[in-house]
């Protein structure tokens, strides 16, 4: 039986990816034999999936410079609902496979993209954006390492102007970094194979992260014949919108596409735009803010608690805070310096009670997380800026008096 939450998640994701939602979609059986598929078939949507014809926009840095970003789009062919299989663990030493069926039958969303991307970097950026969208919608936590988001890459090469070459499917990719590596390796492998007069087989290959290469996969040779047939136990999935809402149906059985559309949260691209407009930060700053879990919220929290302008605060967030967190492999949530404490420090700087250099010194001390306030550290290390004009004059005069020769040199130019 299909659970409601799956359908809602698929509709939300379809809408977020600018798809047309099919008000009537159908379920089919895909037959094949494998130890992790006890029924011998998987229920999927081969004829009419739940959503079609969407797009995903993502951004790339040109030449690794964050300041030059370009926006690209990949078309979404479709989104379909299907069942998960069990999980296989291959034990090559004992020549056996261990099968865990706990996730068998659980609902999945498969997002199929058109071949609009040309390298590992583009695919990685697109998948990263998809990950952020899914997390924002709540459709999935999308953590690749946990198998919550799985990516199979289809790769082919061809000379410009010629038709697409034979494609291979690369599986077993466990992170966005490996996705880029696997794709770039496969592109190179195919080019070398063809330049040496060979041919590309339409096969499934696995990415070996240790060796950084792709290898043919067992049991996936040759074209599979899945003998698709309509799933006899599941009638068509009917979705409604404001116009077609049925009068006498149980609420719990009705899914209203328009209702869901109205309640979609701000997608990452919208959030970035708002950050730029509201705080006057640069687009590339907004990307970094959204790329780290909790960083945007931290930034906004600091801005609220300080008089320092957001354009200045962002530097402290992206340079000082973020680099420290990265160095110590900490998440924003694990930061020993809270937004309150950082705002406190920035206020001292803004009121010119300390210099910028002193502020960095205080921050270095704050990272220790010993619970001291910025003001306490300033007093401890005597970092206060002198405000008294007379005192300053005395000190300057003393310096000049003590360095008569240098002063003469300077005055003479």
């Amino acid at each position, binding site marked *: 039986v299909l*659970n409601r939450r799956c359908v809602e998640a698929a509709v939300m994701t379809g809408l977020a990816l600018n798809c047309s939602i099919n008000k009537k979609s*159908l379920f089919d059986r895909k037959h094949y034999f494998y130890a992790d598929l006890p029924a011998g078939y998987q229920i999927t949507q081969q004829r009419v999936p739940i959503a079609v014809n969407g797009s995903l926009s993502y951004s790339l840095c040109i030449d690794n410079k964050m300041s030059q970003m370009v926006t690209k789009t990949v078309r979404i062919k479709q989104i379909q609902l299907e069942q998960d299989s069990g999980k296989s663990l291959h034990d090559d030493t004992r020549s*056996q*496979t*261990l*099968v*865990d069926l706990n996730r068998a039958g659980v609902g999945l969303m498969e997002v199929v993209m058109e071949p609009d991307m040309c390298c590992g970097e583009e695919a990685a950026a697109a998948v990263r954006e998809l990950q952020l969208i899914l997390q924002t919608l709540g459709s999935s936590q999308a953590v690749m390492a946990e198998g919550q988001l799985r990516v199979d890459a289809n790769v082919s090469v061809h000379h410009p102007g010629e038709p697409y070459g034979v494609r291979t499917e690369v599986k077993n990719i466990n992170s966005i970094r490996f996705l880029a590596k696997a794709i770039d390796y496969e592109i190179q492998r195919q080019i070398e194979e063809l330049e040496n007069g060979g041919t590309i087989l339409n096969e499934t290959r696995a990415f070996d992260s240790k060796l950084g290469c792709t290898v043919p996969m*067992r049991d996936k040779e040759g074209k599979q014949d899945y*003998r698709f047939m309509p799933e006899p136990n599941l009638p068509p999935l009917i979705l409604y919108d404001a116009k077609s809402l049925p009068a006498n149906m149980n609420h*719990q059985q009705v899914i209203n596409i328009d209702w869901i559309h109205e309640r979609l949260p701000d997608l990452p691209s919208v959030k970035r735009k708002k950050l730029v407009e509201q705080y006057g930060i640069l687009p590339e700053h907004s990307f970094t803010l959204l790329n780290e879990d909790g960083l945007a919220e931290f930034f906004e929290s600091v801005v609220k608690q300080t008089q320092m302008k957001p354009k200045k605060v962002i530097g402290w967030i992206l340079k000082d805070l973020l680099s420290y967190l990265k160095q110590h492999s900490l998440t924003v949530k694990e930061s020993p310096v809270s937004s309150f404490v950082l705002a406190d420090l920035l206020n001292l700087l803004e009121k010119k009670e300390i210099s910028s250099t002193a502020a960095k010194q205080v921050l270095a001390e704050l990272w220790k997380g010993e619970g001291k306030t910025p003001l306490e550290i300033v007093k401890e290390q005597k970092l206060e800026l002198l405000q008294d004009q007379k005192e300053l004059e005395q000190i300057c005069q003393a310096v000049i008096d003590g360095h008569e020769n240098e002063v003469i040199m300077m005055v003479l130019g």
Partner: protein
Amino acid sequence: QKVSVEVLEHLEHLALVDFRDAEGVQRLQKAIQFADQLHEVNTDGVEPMDSVLEDRWCLYLREDDVTEGNCTKELLENAREKVEEYFVAPPGNIPLPKLEERETFLQGS
């Protein structure tokens, strides 16, 4: 129209059925002939039917209420071999023996 040996072998491989003897293959041919009668009906412009109940057959959408589970022990009793809580399977699909090695009617064809 006879079904070719290639198709029969393909079907045996896909569905793990064994046509065994001439009678088995005959039965298959008769079944196909019977089903082919469907082609006699003109279905131009007619949408395929999902069910005789038509629009009244609604897909039931279930809430995520946990109503059963926690039966690991009973489920694992089905396993011929197990390791901790995993079912043990061979490393991959065991390929069907080649045509020559099988005792099947198709050998003679």
